[in-house]
């Protein structure tokens, strides 16, 4: 069923995220059992649950589903299609549109004017302030740009429309159960996932690389070598390697080498 055995990690990670949302919903819907009697208790519960759910959602889509967009997890097409639908909805994205933004825009046009997924440039040539990017990118800029890409034919309109409809059906389900619950424990964590977790991630992975000196040195991404970070984030800290070889499986990234590293090793070997 899975193309690579290691991808069982991705599935387990996602199922735990689903279970965390189910637990939060259940607690909200059973206030007597959970001790959520009054407004202060509910406020404390929401204020604590939103960053917790938002953080894992941001990782689940920004890193974990991201692995699926580069290399499909399953052998069969319909399984991959449904995996995308049931996965990206946990950060308020239609899977196909997130994949388009990441693969066809970000990877294909990294740090170029057409890469609208990254922060805009300020007049001094640097990225705009981080908080401005995080607050404005999702859903405002991303929706506008996806609409433009669909109109310009860069994004298949029919497939985008179909997947957006599926997304609306799936994403609206918690609102049908309890609209107030969905507002606090579904929409707000998704805002956190996009604006705080994924927004900050996108910013720091490429901040500084937009400057001419970095471009001359072909420094396009920032790496994060912390073992704990890479263990819990599917090796996304090996970011230069990921951009240079996006087809390399996440489990193989620590053993692979980026172009720059390979060239340096070759020079060392030749000198030896």
């Amino acid at each position, binding site marked *: 069923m899975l193309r*690579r*055995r*290691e991808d*069982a*990690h991705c599935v*387990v*990670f996602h199922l*735990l*995220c689903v*279970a*965390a949302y189910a*637990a*939060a919903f259940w*607690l909200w819907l059973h206030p007597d*059992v*959970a*001790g*959520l009697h009054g407004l202060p*208790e*509910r406020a*404390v*519960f929401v*204020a*604590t*649950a939103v*960053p*917790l*759910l938002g*953080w*894992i959602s941001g*990782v*689940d889509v920004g890193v974990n589903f991201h692995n699926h967009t580069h290399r499909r997890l399953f052998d069969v097409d319909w399984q991959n299609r449904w995996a995308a639908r049931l996965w990206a909805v946990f950060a308020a994205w239609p899977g196909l549109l997130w994949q388009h933004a990441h693969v066809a825009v970000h990877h294909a046009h990294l740090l170029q004017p057409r890469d609208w997924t990254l922060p805009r440039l300020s007049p001094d040539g640097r990225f705009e302030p981080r908080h401005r990017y995080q607050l404005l990118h999702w859903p405002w800029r991303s929706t506008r740009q996806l609409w433009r890409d669909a109109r310009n034919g860069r994004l298949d309109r029919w497939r985008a429309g179909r997947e957006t409809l599926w997304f609306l059906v799936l994403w609206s389900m918690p609102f049908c159960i309890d609209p107030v619950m969905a507002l606090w424990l579904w929409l707000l964590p998704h805002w956190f996932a996009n604006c705080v977790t994924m927004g900050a991630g996108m910013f720091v992975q490429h901040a500084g690389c937009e400057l001419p000196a970095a471009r001359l040195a072909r420094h396009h991404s920032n790496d994060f070598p*912390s073992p*704990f*970070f890479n*263990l*819990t984030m*599917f090796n996304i800290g090996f970011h230069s390697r990921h951009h240079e070889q996006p087809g390399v*499986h996440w*489990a*193989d990234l620590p*053993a*692979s080498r980026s172009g720059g590293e390979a060239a340096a090793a070759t020079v060392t070997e030749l000198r030896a």
Partner: protein
Amino acid sequence: MTTPSPLASRPLHPLTFLLRSLLPLAALLLLASTLLWGPYGFCLATLCWWRTVARIG
């Protein structure tokens, strides 16, 4: 004799499952702690968890 590719599928160890899924697993357990300690205990336990993660990461 052929050498296995270093990039071939590796065996899965239960401990790596646990560690790689640490973030959502902790979120699930912390949410479940509301049943034991109520929303204020959940908030306190989550704050301790964030501090620990920030220290390790």
